[in-house]
C-alpha cells in the first residue's frame, strides 16, 4: 500500500524484478558498480598521496577562502577513498556471496546485499554532481585551470571532464535504482 507514496518505484518494481532475474544484467551491474568504486578509490588515493598538489588545484578554482583550502584538500580525497573502497568491497562481497550460493553454501546469502553500497552510491552521485556544478561555474567564469581531476595526466577544466562526471552521476543513479529494494 505504501507504494502509492512512491509511484515511480511501484511502477518500476515489477519490471525491475524481471531485469534483476537476468544473470547477465545483474553481473553487469556488479561489474559496473565495482568499476565505479575503483575509479573513485583511485582518484582519492592519488590526491591523498599528493596532498599539496591537490591543494594547489583546489586553490586555483578560487571558490573557497584561503583558510579552508587545506581542509577541502584534506577531506575530499578521503570522501572519495571511503565511498570508493566500500563500494568496491560491497560489490566484491556480493559477487563472492552469489558464487557461494550457487555452490550451495547458504552462508553466502549473508554477503549478498551487505555493506552500505547504496549509501556509497549516494555519496558518489553527490560528489559527481558537485564536480559538475563546480566545473561548469569555473568554465563560465572563464578560468583556464588544471581540473585536479586527471587520473593519468593533468587536464584542464573543460567539457570532457564535465561529461565524464555526468556519465558517472548517471551510472551511480542507475545503480542506486537497481539496488533499491523498496518496500
Amino acid at each position, binding site marked *: 500500500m505504501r507504494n502509492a507514496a512512491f509511484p515511480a518505484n511501484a511502477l518500476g518494481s515489477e519490471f525491475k524484478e524481471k531485469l534483476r532475474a537476468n544473470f547477465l544484467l545483474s553481473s553487469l551491474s556488479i561489474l559496473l558498480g565495482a568499476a565505479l568504486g575503483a575509479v573513485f578509490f583511485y582518484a582519492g588515493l592519488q590526491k*591523498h598521496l599528493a*596532498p*599539496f598538489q591537490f*591543494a*594547489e588545484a583546489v*586553490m*586555483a578554482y578560487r571558490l573557497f577562502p*584561503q*583558510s*579552508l*583550502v*587545506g*581542509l577541502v*584538500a*584534506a*577531506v*575530499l*580525497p*578521503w*570522501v572519495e*577513498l*571511503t*565511498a570508493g573502497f*566500500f563500494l568496491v568491497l560491497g560489490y566484491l562481497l556480493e559477487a563472492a556471496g552469489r558464487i557461494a550460493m550457487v555452490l550451495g553454501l547458504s552462508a553466502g546469502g549473508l554477503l*549478498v*546485499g551487505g555493506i*552500505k553500497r*547504496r*549509501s*556509497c552510491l*549516494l*555519496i558518489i552521485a*553527490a560528489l559527481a554532481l558537485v564536480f559538475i556544478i563546480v566545473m561548469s561555474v569555473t568554465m563560465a567564469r572563464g578560468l*583556464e585551470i588544471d581540473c585536479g581531476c586527471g587520473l593519468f595526466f593533468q587536464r584542464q577544466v573543460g567539457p570532457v571532464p564535465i561529461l565524464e562526471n555526468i556519465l558517472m552521476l548517471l551510472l551511480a543513479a542507475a545503480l542506486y535504482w537497481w539496488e*533499491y*529494494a*523498496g*518496500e
Partner: protein
Amino acid sequence: MKKSLWPGDILWAGYLLFLAAFFGVMQHRPMVSLGWQGELPAYIAKLREARRQVQFQGVKTVNLLQARALWETGALFIDARKPEEFAELHIEGAYNLPPDLFKNKDVQLLVGLPKDRRIVVYCGQEACDSALQAAEKLQSQGFTQVAAYLGGFRAWDEAGYPVDTAQ
C-alpha cells in the same frame, strides 16, 4: 533480504562522510593547519621551487625586473603557452612556441638563429612548467643564453608592461 529505505541510506551516507572527514583531517593535519593560518600558498610555492631545482637543474631563471631589462635590450621573447592564449594577448614582440611544436625537429623560428642569442621563455603564471621545459629544450639544442622568466605572462601584464595582440 532485509529491506531498508532511502532515509536510512542517507543516514549511513552521512556517517560515512563523517568518518571520511575525520580521517582526512587526521591524515593531513599539517596541511589543514597551514591552510587555516593562511600559509598554504607560500608553502606550496616553496615545494614547487624545491621540485624545480631538481627537475630543471641547469636552467637559468629571471624575475620580472630582470625580464623587463632583457626585453629592453632586445632579447628574443618566446611565449610557451598554447596558440589560443598567445593570440589573445602576449608580451610585445614575443614569438609563440607552444609545447607541441617542439616535437617537430626543425622549429622554423629557431633555424638560423645564432646560438648565443639572448632568449627569454615564459608561460602563463608562476605555476606552469612549460617555460622551464622549453628553456631546457632550447639549451639542449645548443642555445647558450636562455633564461626562463617564472612570473609568467600574468605578472608581466599586471605590472602594466607592454603587451600586444599582433602575431
